[in-house]
Protein backbone atom coordinates (compact mmCIF):
# COMPACT_ATOMS: atom_id res chain seq x y z
CA UNK A 1 0.00 0.00 0.00
CA UNK A 2 1.43 3.37 -0.98
CA UNK A 3 0.62 6.29 1.23
CA UNK A 4 0.68 10.03 0.66
CA UNK A 5 0.81 10.00 -3.11
CA UNK A 6 0.91 13.51 -4.57
CA UNK A 7 -2.55 14.56 -5.81
CA UNK A 8 -3.09 13.99 -9.48
CA UNK A 9 -0.29 11.44 -9.84
CA UNK A 10 -2.34 8.37 -9.19
CA UNK A 11 -2.67 7.54 -12.91
CA UNK A 12 1.12 7.67 -13.28
CA UNK A 13 1.64 5.57 -10.16
CA UNK A 14 -0.84 2.95 -11.31
CA UNK A 15 0.72 2.81 -14.78
CA UNK A 16 4.18 2.50 -13.18
CA UNK A 17 2.96 -0.30 -10.90
CA UNK A 18 1.42 -2.23 -13.79
CA UNK A 19 4.53 -1.66 -15.87
CA UNK A 20 6.73 -2.94 -13.04
CA UNK A 21 4.62 -6.08 -12.83
CA UNK A 22 5.05 -6.74 -16.55
CA UNK A 23 8.77 -5.98 -16.36
CA UNK A 24 9.27 -8.39 -13.45
CA UNK A 25 7.52 -11.18 -15.38
CA UNK A 26 9.67 -10.52 -18.46
CA UNK A 27 12.91 -10.36 -16.42
CA UNK A 28 12.08 -13.65 -14.73
CA UNK A 29 11.38 -15.43 -18.03
CA UNK A 30 14.59 -14.07 -19.60
CA UNK A 31 16.68 -15.05 -16.59
CA UNK A 32 15.13 -18.54 -16.53
CA UNK A 33 16.08 -19.01 -20.17
CA UNK A 34 19.72 -17.96 -19.57
CA UNK A 35 22.54 -20.29 -18.49
CA UNK A 36 23.64 -20.86 -14.91
CA UNK A 37 23.89 -23.41 -12.13
CA UNK A 38 20.19 -23.83 -11.35
CA UNK A 39 18.63 -23.16 -14.77
CA UNK A 40 19.34 -26.58 -16.36
CA UNK A 41 18.04 -28.54 -13.37
CA UNK A 42 14.69 -30.32 -13.42
CA UNK A 43 11.97 -27.95 -12.17
CA UNK A 44 10.78 -30.53 -9.62
CA UNK A 45 14.23 -30.68 -8.06
CA UNK A 46 14.33 -26.90 -7.74
CA UNK A 47 10.83 -26.71 -6.28
CA UNK A 48 11.53 -29.42 -3.71
CA UNK A 49 15.08 -28.23 -2.98
CA UNK A 50 14.37 -24.53 -2.58
CA UNK A 51 11.12 -25.13 -0.66
CA UNK A 52 12.95 -27.43 1.76
CA UNK A 53 15.58 -24.72 2.33
CA UNK A 54 12.77 -22.22 3.02
CA UNK A 55 11.30 -24.70 5.51
CA UNK A 56 14.70 -25.23 7.16
CA UNK A 57 15.04 -21.44 7.58
CA UNK A 58 11.52 -21.28 9.03
CA UNK A 59 12.25 -24.06 11.53
CA UNK A 60 15.67 -22.79 12.66
CA UNK A 61 15.97 -21.53 16.21
CA UNK A 62 19.54 -20.25 15.78
CA UNK A 63 20.38 -17.03 13.98
CA UNK A 64 23.63 -18.30 12.47
CA UNK A 65 21.79 -21.17 10.76
CA UNK A 66 19.35 -18.77 9.08
CA UNK A 67 22.28 -16.54 8.12
CA UNK A 68 24.08 -19.55 6.63
CA UNK A 69 21.01 -20.45 4.53
CA UNK A 70 20.83 -16.83 3.38
CA UNK A 71 24.51 -16.95 2.38
CA UNK A 72 23.81 -20.20 0.51
CA UNK A 73 20.91 -18.53 -1.33
CA UNK A 74 23.22 -15.65 -2.32
CA UNK A 75 25.86 -18.10 -3.56
CA UNK A 76 23.26 -19.99 -5.61
CA UNK A 77 22.07 -16.68 -7.07
CA UNK A 78 25.59 -15.68 -8.06
CA UNK A 79 26.28 -19.07 -9.65
CA UNK A 80 22.97 -18.87 -11.53
CA UNK A 81 23.78 -15.39 -12.91
CA UNK A 82 20.94 -13.74 -10.98
CA UNK A 83 22.58 -10.43 -10.16
CA UNK A 84 22.59 -9.00 -6.64
CA UNK A 85 21.35 -5.73 -8.16
CA UNK A 86 18.18 -7.50 -9.34
CA UNK A 87 17.79 -9.27 -5.98
CA UNK A 88 18.27 -6.00 -4.11
CA UNK A 89 15.74 -4.20 -6.29
CA UNK A 90 13.17 -7.01 -6.36
CA UNK A 91 13.55 -8.47 -2.88
CA UNK A 92 15.99 -7.16 -0.36
CA UNK A 93 15.14 -3.45 -0.24
CA UNK A 94 11.38 -4.05 -0.22
CA UNK A 95 11.59 -6.76 2.43
CA UNK A 96 13.96 -4.67 4.53
CA UNK A 97 11.69 -1.63 4.37
CA UNK A 98 8.48 -3.54 5.10
CA UNK A 99 9.73 -6.00 7.69
CA UNK A 100 12.21 -3.49 9.13
CA UNK A 101 9.35 -1.13 9.95
CA UNK A 102 7.65 -3.99 11.78
CA UNK A 103 10.80 -5.33 13.43
CA UNK A 104 12.28 -2.06 14.78
CA UNK A 105 9.68 -1.45 17.53
CA UNK A 106 10.28 -4.98 18.81
CA UNK A 107 13.82 -3.89 19.77
CA UNK A 108 12.27 -1.77 22.53
CA UNK A 109 8.97 -3.49 23.16
CA UNK A 110 10.27 -7.00 23.79
CA UNK A 111 10.94 -7.43 27.51
CA UNK A 112 14.31 -8.87 28.48
CA UNK A 113 17.91 -8.05 29.41
CA UNK A 114 19.02 -4.50 28.61
CA UNK A 115 21.56 -4.38 25.79
CA UNK A 116 21.98 -0.63 25.28
CA UNK A 117 20.10 2.65 25.45
CA UNK A 118 19.16 4.91 22.58
CA UNK A 119 21.07 8.18 23.14
CA UNK A 120 18.75 11.09 23.80
CA UNK A 121 15.74 8.85 24.35
CA UNK A 122 14.88 6.75 27.35
CA UNK A 123 14.36 3.66 25.24
CA UNK A 124 16.21 0.46 26.05
CA UNK A 125 17.14 -2.09 23.41
CA UNK A 126 16.88 -5.55 24.91
CA UNK A 127 18.92 -8.60 23.92
CA UNK A 128 15.68 -10.49 23.32
CA UNK A 129 14.33 -7.61 21.24
CA UNK A 130 17.47 -7.57 19.14
CA UNK A 131 17.27 -11.34 18.67
CA UNK A 132 13.60 -11.34 17.67
CA UNK A 133 14.07 -8.48 15.18
CA UNK A 134 17.05 -10.34 13.70
CA UNK A 135 15.07 -13.59 13.44
CA UNK A 136 12.25 -11.84 11.63
CA UNK A 137 14.42 -9.88 9.19
CA UNK A 138 16.75 -12.77 8.38
CA UNK A 139 13.94 -15.26 7.89
CA UNK A 140 11.98 -12.91 5.61
CA UNK A 141 15.04 -12.01 3.50
CA UNK A 142 16.15 -15.65 3.24
CA UNK A 143 12.74 -17.03 2.27
CA UNK A 144 12.09 -14.22 -0.22
CA UNK A 145 15.53 -14.68 -1.82
CA UNK A 146 15.00 -18.44 -2.23
CA UNK A 147 11.51 -17.93 -3.65
CA UNK A 148 12.72 -15.37 -6.18
CA UNK A 149 15.63 -17.64 -7.06
CA UNK A 150 13.13 -20.32 -8.07
CA UNK A 151 11.19 -17.94 -10.31
CA UNK A 152 14.32 -16.42 -11.86
CA UNK A 153 15.80 -19.80 -12.76
CA UNK A 154 12.69 -21.71 -13.86
CA UNK A 155 10.07 -20.97 -16.47
CA UNK A 156 6.73 -20.19 -14.82
CA UNK A 157 4.86 -23.00 -16.54
CA UNK A 158 7.51 -25.48 -15.38
CA UNK A 159 7.15 -24.28 -11.77
CA UNK A 160 3.40 -24.84 -11.93
CA UNK A 161 3.71 -28.27 -13.53
CA UNK A 162 6.24 -29.21 -10.85
CA UNK A 163 3.56 -28.58 -8.19
CA UNK A 164 2.09 -31.93 -9.23
CA UNK A 165 4.70 -33.61 -7.01
CA UNK A 166 2.82 -32.12 -4.04
CA UNK A 167 -0.34 -33.84 -5.36
CA UNK A 168 -1.95 -30.54 -6.34
CA UNK A 169 -4.96 -31.62 -8.46
CA UNK A 170 -4.41 -31.49 -12.20
CA UNK A 171 -7.28 -29.11 -12.74
CA UNK A 172 -5.79 -26.62 -10.25
CA UNK A 173 -2.41 -26.79 -11.98
CA UNK A 174 -4.20 -26.01 -15.24
CA UNK A 175 -6.09 -23.14 -13.58
CA UNK A 176 -2.84 -21.73 -12.15
CA UNK A 177 -1.17 -22.00 -15.55
CA UNK A 178 -3.99 -20.24 -17.37
CA UNK A 179 -4.28 -17.58 -14.68
CA UNK A 180 -0.57 -16.78 -14.83
CA UNK A 181 -0.75 -16.43 -18.63
CA UNK A 182 -3.82 -14.21 -18.53
CA UNK A 183 -2.38 -12.08 -15.74
CA UNK A 184 0.12 -10.80 -18.31
CA UNK A 185 -2.67 -10.12 -20.83
CA UNK A 186 -4.86 -8.35 -18.28
CA UNK A 187 -1.87 -6.39 -16.92
CA UNK A 188 -1.20 -5.17 -20.43
CA UNK A 189 -4.86 -4.41 -20.96
CA UNK A 190 -5.05 -2.41 -17.70
CA UNK A 191 -1.77 -0.69 -18.55
CA UNK A 192 -3.15 0.44 -21.93
CA UNK A 193 -6.40 1.54 -20.32
CA UNK A 194 -4.62 3.78 -17.81
CA UNK A 195 -2.15 5.04 -20.42
CA UNK A 196 -4.98 6.12 -22.71
CA UNK A 197 -6.84 7.74 -19.79
CA UNK A 198 -3.65 9.53 -18.78
CA UNK A 199 -3.09 10.84 -22.29
CA UNK A 200 -6.58 12.34 -22.31
CA UNK A 201 -6.34 13.90 -18.84
CA UNK A 202 -5.47 17.59 -18.64
CA UNK A 203 -4.37 18.80 -15.20
CA UNK A 204 -4.95 17.08 -11.89
CA UNK A 205 -8.16 15.17 -11.28
CA UNK A 206 -10.15 15.78 -8.11
CA UNK A 207 -10.25 12.98 -5.51
CA UNK A 208 -13.77 11.82 -6.39
CA UNK A 209 -12.97 11.84 -10.12
CA UNK A 210 -9.83 9.77 -9.53
CA UNK A 211 -11.84 7.23 -7.56
CA UNK A 212 -14.40 7.09 -10.38
CA UNK A 213 -11.63 6.45 -12.92
CA UNK A 214 -10.15 3.63 -10.83
CA UNK A 215 -13.51 1.98 -10.12
CA UNK A 216 -14.76 2.32 -13.71
CA UNK A 217 -11.47 0.84 -14.96
CA UNK A 218 -11.91 -2.10 -12.59
CA UNK A 219 -15.47 -2.56 -13.86
CA UNK A 220 -14.40 -2.46 -17.51
CA UNK A 221 -11.61 -4.92 -16.78
CA UNK A 222 -14.04 -7.28 -15.02
CA UNK A 223 -16.39 -7.14 -18.01
CA UNK A 224 -13.49 -7.89 -20.37
CA UNK A 225 -12.31 -10.69 -18.09
CA UNK A 226 -15.64 -12.49 -18.12
CA UNK A 227 -16.07 -11.94 -21.86
CA UNK A 228 -12.60 -13.33 -22.41
CA UNK A 229 -13.44 -16.29 -20.19
CA UNK A 230 -16.39 -17.10 -22.47
CA UNK A 231 -14.23 -16.76 -25.59
CA UNK A 232 -11.48 -18.92 -24.13
CA UNK A 233 -14.05 -21.54 -23.14
CA UNK A 234 -15.46 -21.66 -26.67
CA UNK A 235 -11.95 -21.87 -28.13
CA UNK A 236 -11.14 -24.73 -25.75
CA UNK A 237 -14.32 -26.56 -26.71
CA UNK A 238 -13.54 -26.08 -30.39
CA UNK A 239 -10.19 -27.78 -29.77
CA UNK A 240 -11.83 -30.77 -28.15
CA UNK A 241 -11.85 -29.78 -24.45
CA UNK A 242 -14.54 -31.77 -22.63
CA UNK A 243 -13.56 -31.13 -19.03
CA UNK A 244 -10.60 -33.51 -18.84
CA UNK A 245 -7.29 -31.76 -18.23
CA UNK A 246 -4.05 -33.27 -19.53
CA UNK A 247 -0.60 -31.79 -18.95
CA UNK A 248 2.33 -32.37 -21.22
CA UNK A 249 4.78 -33.78 -18.71
CA UNK A 250 8.21 -33.27 -20.22
CA UNK A 251 10.21 -33.78 -17.03
CA UNK A 252 13.12 -36.23 -17.10
CA UNK A 253 15.55 -36.68 -14.23
CA UNK A 254 19.17 -36.71 -15.32
CA UNK A 255 22.22 -37.62 -13.26
CA UNK A 256 22.87 -33.95 -12.48
CA UNK A 257 19.31 -33.63 -11.15
CA UNK A 258 19.76 -36.55 -8.76
CA UNK A 259 23.05 -35.05 -7.54
CA UNK A 260 21.37 -31.67 -7.03
CA UNK A 261 18.43 -33.30 -5.21
CA UNK A 262 20.82 -35.11 -2.89
CA UNK A 263 22.70 -31.84 -2.31
CA UNK A 264 19.52 -29.93 -1.46
CA UNK A 265 18.34 -32.76 0.82
CA UNK A 266 21.70 -32.82 2.65
CA UNK A 267 21.78 -29.04 3.07
CA UNK A 268 18.18 -28.80 4.24
CA UNK A 269 18.64 -31.69 6.68
CA UNK A 270 21.83 -30.10 8.02
CA UNK A 271 19.96 -26.80 8.39
CA UNK A 272 17.10 -28.41 10.32
CA UNK A 273 19.52 -30.39 12.51
CA UNK A 274 21.81 -27.45 13.30
CA UNK A 275 18.92 -25.05 13.82
CA UNK A 276 16.86 -27.21 16.18
Amino acid at each position, binding site marked *: *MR*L*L*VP*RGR*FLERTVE*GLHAGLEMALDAENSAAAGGLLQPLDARVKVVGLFSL*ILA*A*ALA*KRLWVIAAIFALACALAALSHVSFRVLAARVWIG*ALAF*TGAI*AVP*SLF*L*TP*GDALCHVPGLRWTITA*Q*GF*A*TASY*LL*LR*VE*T*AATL*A*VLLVFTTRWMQVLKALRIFHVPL*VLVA*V*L*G*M*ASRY*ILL*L*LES*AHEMFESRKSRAVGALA*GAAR*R*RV*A*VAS*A*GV*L*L*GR*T*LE*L*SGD*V*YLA*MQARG*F*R*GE*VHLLDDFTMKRLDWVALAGFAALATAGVWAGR
Partner: protein
Amino acid sequence: MHIPDGYLSPATCAALYGGAVPFWYVALRRVRQALHTRLVPLISLFAAFSFVIMMFNLPLPGGTTGHAVGIGLAAVVLGPWAAMLAVSTAIVIQALFFGDGGITAIGANCFNMAIVGALVAYAVYRILARRAAIGSARRVVAAGLAGYAAINVSALLAAIEFGIQPLLYRDATGAPLYCPYPLSIAIPAMMLGHLTIAGFAELTVSAGVVAYLQRSDPSLLQSTAGRGAESIEASAGGALRPLWLGLGALLILTPLGILATGSAWGEWVARDFADPAARHAIAASSFHQAAPLRAPEGLARWSQIWTAPFARYAPPYVRSAAFGYLLSAMFGAGLILLACLAVGRLTRRQGPTT
Protein backbone atom coordinates in the same frame (compact mmCIF):
# COMPACT_ATOMS: atom_id res chain seq x y z
CA MET B 1 -2.51 -8.46 4.63
CA HIS B 2 -0.41 -10.96 2.65
CA ILE B 3 1.59 -12.66 5.39
CA PRO B 4 5.23 -13.16 4.28
CA ASP B 5 7.43 -16.13 5.18
CA GLY B 6 9.02 -15.88 8.62
CA TYR B 7 6.12 -14.25 10.48
CA LEU B 8 4.34 -17.49 11.36
CA SER B 9 5.81 -20.71 12.73
CA PRO B 10 5.80 -23.76 10.46
CA ALA B 11 3.32 -25.42 12.85
CA THR B 12 0.86 -22.53 12.48
CA CYS B 13 1.32 -22.59 8.71
CA ALA B 14 0.71 -26.35 8.64
CA ALA B 15 -2.44 -26.00 10.76
CA LEU B 16 -3.81 -23.33 8.43
CA TYR B 17 -2.97 -25.42 5.34
CA GLY B 18 -4.90 -28.22 7.06
CA GLY B 19 -7.79 -25.85 7.71
CA ALA B 20 -7.87 -24.67 4.10
CA VAL B 21 -7.71 -28.08 2.37
CA PRO B 22 -11.29 -29.26 3.15
CA PHE B 23 -12.69 -25.94 1.92
CA TRP B 24 -10.68 -26.16 -1.31
CA TYR B 25 -11.93 -29.71 -1.80
CA VAL B 26 -15.57 -28.78 -1.23
CA ALA B 27 -15.23 -25.63 -3.36
CA LEU B 28 -13.75 -27.60 -6.23
CA ARG B 29 -16.53 -30.20 -6.10
CA ARG B 30 -19.34 -27.67 -5.79
CA VAL B 31 -18.07 -25.45 -8.56
CA ARG B 32 -17.33 -28.43 -10.79
CA GLN B 33 -20.85 -29.75 -10.42
CA ALA B 34 -22.34 -26.37 -11.20
CA LEU B 35 -20.09 -25.20 -13.98
CA HIS B 36 -18.67 -28.36 -15.54
CA THR B 37 -16.16 -27.52 -18.23
CA ARG B 38 -16.47 -23.73 -17.83
CA LEU B 39 -14.61 -24.02 -14.53
CA VAL B 40 -11.07 -23.84 -15.88
CA PRO B 41 -11.31 -20.62 -17.92
CA LEU B 42 -13.71 -18.88 -15.53
CA ILE B 43 -11.65 -19.42 -12.37
CA SER B 44 -8.39 -18.75 -14.23
CA LEU B 45 -9.56 -15.49 -15.72
CA PHE B 46 -11.14 -14.28 -12.51
CA ALA B 47 -7.95 -15.13 -10.60
CA ALA B 48 -5.99 -13.07 -13.14
CA PHE B 49 -8.49 -10.23 -12.71
CA SER B 50 -8.21 -10.45 -8.91
CA PHE B 51 -4.42 -10.24 -9.23
CA VAL B 52 -4.50 -7.19 -11.51
CA ILE B 53 -7.10 -5.38 -9.41
CA MET B 54 -4.70 -5.54 -6.45
CA MET B 55 -2.29 -3.39 -8.45
CA PHE B 56 -4.80 -0.56 -8.94
CA ASN B 57 -3.98 2.43 -6.78
CA LEU B 58 -7.19 3.74 -5.36
CA PRO B 59 -7.10 7.39 -4.23
CA LEU B 60 -8.68 7.70 -0.80
CA PRO B 61 -9.79 10.74 1.19
CA GLY B 62 -6.91 12.39 3.05
CA GLY B 63 -4.35 12.07 0.27
CA THR B 64 -3.64 8.38 0.78
CA THR B 65 -4.01 5.52 -1.66
CA GLY B 66 -4.87 1.92 -1.01
CA HIS B 67 -5.56 -1.18 -3.01
CA ALA B 68 -8.41 -3.64 -2.86
CA VAL B 69 -8.01 -7.42 -2.69
CA GLY B 70 -11.24 -8.03 -4.58
CA ILE B 71 -12.65 -10.61 -2.14
CA GLY B 72 -16.02 -8.90 -1.91
CA LEU B 73 -16.31 -8.49 -5.65
CA ALA B 74 -15.35 -12.12 -6.32
CA ALA B 75 -17.94 -13.37 -3.82
CA VAL B 76 -20.68 -11.13 -5.26
CA VAL B 77 -20.02 -12.07 -8.90
CA LEU B 78 -18.93 -15.73 -8.60
CA GLY B 79 -20.47 -16.88 -5.32
CA PRO B 80 -18.43 -18.00 -2.31
CA TRP B 81 -17.09 -21.33 -3.58
CA ALA B 82 -15.83 -20.16 -6.95
CA ALA B 83 -14.52 -16.99 -5.27
CA MET B 84 -12.51 -19.15 -2.86
CA LEU B 85 -10.78 -20.88 -5.76
CA ALA B 86 -10.21 -17.71 -7.78
CA VAL B 87 -8.75 -15.69 -4.89
CA SER B 88 -6.66 -18.71 -3.74
CA THR B 89 -5.24 -19.02 -7.26
CA ALA B 90 -4.33 -15.33 -7.27
CA ILE B 91 -2.67 -15.68 -3.85
CA VAL B 92 -0.63 -18.72 -4.96
CA ILE B 93 0.59 -16.89 -8.08
CA GLN B 94 1.44 -13.79 -6.06
CA ALA B 95 3.47 -15.84 -3.59
CA LEU B 96 5.25 -17.95 -6.19
CA PHE B 97 6.01 -15.38 -8.86
CA PHE B 98 5.74 -11.92 -7.35
CA GLY B 99 6.98 -12.46 -3.78
CA ASP B 100 3.78 -10.97 -2.33
CA GLY B 101 3.03 -13.25 0.61
CA GLY B 102 5.14 -16.18 1.72
CA ILE B 103 5.28 -19.67 0.29
CA THR B 104 5.00 -21.29 3.71
CA ALA B 105 2.16 -18.86 4.48
CA ILE B 106 0.08 -19.66 1.36
CA GLY B 107 -2.29 -21.76 3.48
CA ALA B 108 -2.68 -18.96 6.04
CA ASN B 109 -3.23 -16.28 3.41
CA CYS B 110 -5.74 -18.43 1.53
CA PHE B 111 -7.54 -19.33 4.75
CA ASN B 112 -7.80 -15.71 5.89
CA MET B 113 -8.62 -14.01 2.62
CA ALA B 114 -9.88 -16.54 0.09
CA ILE B 115 -11.86 -18.83 2.40
CA VAL B 116 -13.07 -16.88 5.42
CA GLY B 117 -13.09 -13.63 3.46
CA ALA B 118 -15.24 -15.06 0.67
CA LEU B 119 -17.68 -16.70 3.09
CA VAL B 120 -18.03 -13.51 5.15
CA ALA B 121 -18.45 -11.35 2.05
CA TYR B 122 -21.10 -13.63 0.61
CA ALA B 123 -23.03 -13.90 3.90
CA VAL B 124 -23.01 -10.13 4.44
CA TYR B 125 -24.03 -9.48 0.83
CA ARG B 126 -26.93 -11.95 0.88
CA ILE B 127 -28.20 -10.83 4.28
CA LEU B 128 -28.07 -7.13 3.45
CA ALA B 129 -29.22 -7.32 -0.17
CA ARG B 130 -32.16 -9.63 0.66
CA ARG B 131 -34.80 -9.35 -2.08
CA ALA B 132 -33.61 -6.08 -3.54
CA ALA B 133 -33.80 -5.67 -7.32
CA ILE B 134 -30.57 -6.22 -9.23
CA GLY B 135 -30.34 -2.53 -10.09
CA SER B 136 -31.11 -1.24 -6.61
CA ALA B 137 -28.84 0.96 -4.53
CA ARG B 138 -29.26 -1.52 -1.69
CA ARG B 139 -27.15 -4.05 -3.60
CA VAL B 140 -24.38 -1.46 -4.05
CA VAL B 141 -24.33 -0.76 -0.31
CA ALA B 142 -24.48 -4.50 0.47
CA ALA B 143 -21.54 -5.23 -1.85
CA GLY B 144 -19.49 -2.40 -0.33
CA LEU B 145 -20.16 -3.54 3.22
CA ALA B 146 -19.50 -7.16 2.21
CA GLY B 147 -16.04 -6.18 0.96
CA TYR B 148 -15.42 -4.06 4.07
CA ALA B 149 -16.44 -6.86 6.43
CA ALA B 150 -14.46 -9.49 4.51
CA ILE B 151 -11.18 -7.57 4.51
CA ASN B 152 -11.52 -6.73 8.19
CA VAL B 153 -12.37 -10.26 9.30
CA SER B 154 -9.40 -11.49 7.24
CA ALA B 155 -7.16 -8.89 8.88
CA LEU B 156 -8.42 -9.88 12.32
CA LEU B 157 -7.56 -13.52 11.64
CA ALA B 158 -4.08 -12.53 10.45
CA ALA B 159 -3.63 -10.40 13.58
CA ILE B 160 -4.65 -13.31 15.82
CA GLU B 161 -2.21 -15.59 13.99
CA PHE B 162 0.54 -12.99 14.51
CA GLY B 163 -0.45 -12.39 18.12
CA ILE B 164 -0.26 -16.02 19.23
CA GLN B 165 3.28 -16.48 17.91
CA PRO B 166 5.15 -14.91 20.89
CA LEU B 167 2.97 -16.88 23.28
CA LEU B 168 3.91 -20.18 21.67
CA TYR B 169 7.36 -19.89 20.12
CA ARG B 170 10.43 -18.50 21.88
CA ASP B 171 14.10 -19.41 21.88
CA ALA B 172 16.15 -20.39 24.92
CA THR B 173 16.65 -16.74 25.96
CA GLY B 174 12.94 -15.96 25.74
CA ALA B 175 13.15 -14.03 22.45
CA PRO B 176 10.10 -14.59 20.20
CA LEU B 177 11.10 -16.69 17.19
CA TYR B 178 8.50 -15.37 14.76
CA CYS B 179 6.17 -12.36 14.87
CA PRO B 180 7.24 -10.64 18.10
CA TYR B 181 4.05 -8.81 19.04
CA PRO B 182 1.39 -10.23 21.35
CA LEU B 183 -2.34 -10.00 20.64
CA SER B 184 -2.58 -6.71 22.57
CA ILE B 185 -0.33 -5.06 19.97
CA ALA B 186 -0.96 -7.16 16.85
CA ILE B 187 -4.74 -6.72 16.80
CA PRO B 188 -4.89 -2.91 17.15
CA ALA B 189 -1.92 -2.47 14.79
CA MET B 190 -3.52 -4.57 12.05
CA MET B 191 -7.07 -3.38 12.53
CA LEU B 192 -6.26 0.33 12.55
CA GLY B 193 -5.10 0.25 8.93
CA HIS B 194 -7.79 -2.14 7.78
CA LEU B 195 -10.76 -0.50 9.49
CA THR B 196 -9.76 2.73 7.77
CA ILE B 197 -7.60 2.66 4.64
CA ALA B 198 -7.71 -0.93 3.34
CA GLY B 199 -11.33 -1.41 4.37
CA PHE B 200 -12.34 1.77 2.61
CA ALA B 201 -10.46 0.70 -0.54
CA GLU B 202 -12.25 -2.66 -0.55
CA LEU B 203 -15.58 -0.99 0.12
CA THR B 204 -15.09 1.50 -2.70
CA VAL B 205 -14.04 -1.09 -5.27
CA SER B 206 -16.78 -3.60 -4.34
CA ALA B 207 -19.56 -1.00 -4.28
CA GLY B 208 -18.23 0.95 -7.26
CA VAL B 209 -17.82 -2.05 -9.55
CA VAL B 210 -21.23 -3.45 -8.60
CA ALA B 211 -22.77 -0.05 -9.39
CA TYR B 212 -20.90 -0.08 -12.70
CA LEU B 213 -22.10 -3.62 -13.50
CA GLN B 214 -25.70 -2.68 -12.67
CA ARG B 215 -25.55 -0.20 -15.54
CA SER B 216 -23.31 -2.08 -17.96
CA ASP B 217 -24.03 -5.81 -17.50
CA PRO B 218 -26.51 -6.62 -14.71
CA SER B 219 -26.62 -10.29 -15.74
CA LEU B 220 -23.24 -10.73 -14.02
CA LEU B 221 -24.92 -10.06 -10.68
CA GLN B 222 -27.73 -12.53 -11.24
CA SER B 223 -26.07 -15.76 -10.18
CA THR B 224 -25.55 -14.74 -6.55
CA ALA B 225 -28.75 -12.74 -6.25
CA GLY B 226 -31.35 -15.46 -5.90
CA ARG B 227 -32.47 -18.66 -7.50
CA GLY B 228 -29.36 -19.16 -9.66
CA ALA B 229 -27.07 -19.34 -6.65
CA GLU B 230 -29.46 -21.63 -4.82
CA SER B 231 -29.53 -24.11 -7.65
CA ILE B 232 -25.73 -24.37 -7.57
CA GLU B 233 -25.75 -24.99 -3.84
CA ALA B 234 -28.67 -27.41 -3.89
CA SER B 235 -27.06 -29.57 -6.55
CA ALA B 236 -23.98 -30.21 -4.49
CA GLY B 237 -25.21 -31.15 -1.03
CA GLY B 238 -23.07 -34.30 -0.93
CA ALA B 239 -19.93 -32.28 -1.48
CA LEU B 240 -20.13 -31.14 2.13
CA ARG B 241 -19.41 -34.67 3.36
CA PRO B 242 -15.65 -34.06 4.00
CA LEU B 243 -16.46 -31.04 6.14
CA TRP B 244 -18.97 -33.05 8.17
CA LEU B 245 -16.43 -35.85 8.56
CA GLY B 246 -13.74 -33.34 9.56
CA LEU B 247 -16.07 -31.76 12.12
CA GLY B 248 -16.92 -35.20 13.54
CA ALA B 249 -13.23 -36.11 13.82
CA LEU B 250 -12.42 -32.82 15.55
CA LEU B 251 -15.27 -33.36 18.02
CA ILE B 252 -13.98 -36.81 18.88
CA LEU B 253 -10.48 -35.41 19.36
CA THR B 254 -11.57 -32.54 21.63
CA PRO B 255 -10.71 -34.42 24.90
CA LEU B 256 -7.07 -34.07 23.82
CA GLY B 257 -7.43 -30.41 24.84
CA ILE B 258 -7.45 -31.35 28.52
CA LEU B 259 -3.97 -32.86 28.16
CA ALA B 260 -2.58 -29.31 28.06
CA THR B 261 -1.78 -28.05 31.52
CA GLY B 262 -2.56 -24.57 32.84
CA SER B 263 -5.04 -22.09 31.40
CA ALA B 264 -4.78 -19.89 28.33
CA TRP B 265 -3.14 -16.52 28.88
CA GLY B 266 -5.70 -13.93 29.88
CA GLU B 267 -8.48 -16.46 30.45
CA TRP B 268 -8.11 -16.58 34.20
CA VAL B 269 -11.06 -16.53 36.57
CA ALA B 270 -11.25 -14.48 39.77
CA ARG B 271 -10.48 -17.42 42.07
CA ASP B 272 -7.20 -18.16 40.20
CA PHE B 273 -5.63 -15.12 41.87
CA ALA B 274 -6.01 -16.71 45.29
CA ASP B 275 -4.70 -20.12 44.18
CA PRO B 276 -0.86 -20.39 44.54
CA ALA B 277 -0.53 -22.93 41.70
CA ALA B 278 -2.61 -20.78 39.36
CA ARG B 279 -0.67 -17.67 40.40
CA HIS B 280 2.56 -19.45 39.56
CA ALA B 281 1.21 -20.39 36.12
CA ILE B 282 0.08 -16.78 35.51
CA ALA B 283 3.54 -15.44 36.41
CA ALA B 284 5.28 -18.05 34.24
CA SER B 285 3.23 -17.07 31.21
CA SER B 286 3.57 -13.28 31.86
CA PHE B 287 7.31 -12.83 31.65
CA HIS B 288 7.62 -13.67 35.37
CA GLN B 289 5.54 -10.71 36.40
CA ALA B 290 3.77 -11.62 39.62
CA ALA B 291 -0.03 -11.58 39.51
CA PRO B 292 -1.85 -9.32 42.03
CA LEU B 293 -2.75 -11.00 45.31
CA ARG B 294 -6.46 -10.43 44.78
CA ALA B 295 -8.48 -10.52 41.58
CA PRO B 296 -8.81 -7.05 40.03
CA GLU B 297 -12.00 -5.39 41.28
CA GLY B 298 -13.58 -5.13 37.83
CA LEU B 299 -12.85 -8.79 37.05
CA ALA B 300 -14.30 -9.91 40.39
CA ARG B 301 -17.44 -7.81 39.88
CA TRP B 302 -18.15 -8.57 36.23
CA SER B 303 -17.38 -12.27 36.51
CA GLN B 304 -20.43 -12.62 38.80
CA ILE B 305 -22.87 -11.38 36.17
CA TRP B 306 -23.17 -14.53 34.09
CA THR B 307 -22.43 -18.12 34.97
CA ALA B 308 -22.07 -20.24 31.87
CA PRO B 309 -23.88 -23.59 31.89
CA PHE B 310 -20.68 -25.26 30.63
CA ALA B 311 -18.18 -23.14 32.60
CA ARG B 312 -14.57 -24.02 31.67
CA TYR B 313 -15.94 -26.75 29.40
CA ALA B 314 -16.70 -28.84 32.50
CA PRO B 315 -20.46 -29.15 33.16
CA PRO B 316 -20.87 -29.67 36.94
CA TYR B 317 -23.21 -32.65 36.45
CA VAL B 318 -20.66 -34.66 34.39
CA ARG B 319 -18.00 -36.51 36.37
CA SER B 320 -15.62 -37.41 33.54
CA ALA B 321 -13.55 -34.39 32.43
CA ALA B 322 -13.04 -35.89 28.95
CA PHE B 323 -16.76 -36.51 28.47
CA GLY B 324 -17.57 -33.02 29.76
CA TYR B 325 -15.12 -31.56 27.25
CA LEU B 326 -16.65 -33.60 24.44
CA LEU B 327 -20.17 -32.62 25.50
CA SER B 328 -19.19 -28.94 25.53
CA ALA B 329 -17.70 -29.25 22.04
CA MET B 330 -20.85 -30.95 20.72
CA PHE B 331 -23.08 -28.35 22.35
CA GLY B 332 -21.04 -25.45 20.95
CA ALA B 333 -20.80 -26.94 17.47
CA GLY B 334 -24.52 -27.71 17.53
CA LEU B 335 -25.37 -24.11 18.43
CA ILE B 336 -23.18 -22.79 15.60
CA LEU B 337 -24.79 -25.19 13.12
CA LEU B 338 -28.26 -24.11 14.25
CA ALA B 339 -27.30 -20.45 13.79
CA CYS B 340 -25.91 -21.23 10.30
CA LEU B 341 -29.06 -23.14 9.37
CA ALA B 342 -31.18 -20.19 10.51
CA VAL B 343 -29.13 -17.75 8.44
CA GLY B 344 -29.23 -20.15 5.48
CA ARG B 345 -33.01 -20.47 5.71
CA LEU B 346 -33.35 -16.71 5.98
CA THR B 347 -31.32 -16.10 2.82
CA ARG B 348 -32.90 -19.01 0.91
CA ARG B 349 -36.35 -17.51 1.29
CA GLN B 350 -35.37 -14.76 -1.09
CA GLY B 351 -36.82 -15.35 -4.49
CA PRO B 352 -35.77 -14.10 -7.95
CA THR B 353 -34.94 -10.44 -7.80
CA THR B 354 -35.60 -8.96 -11.20
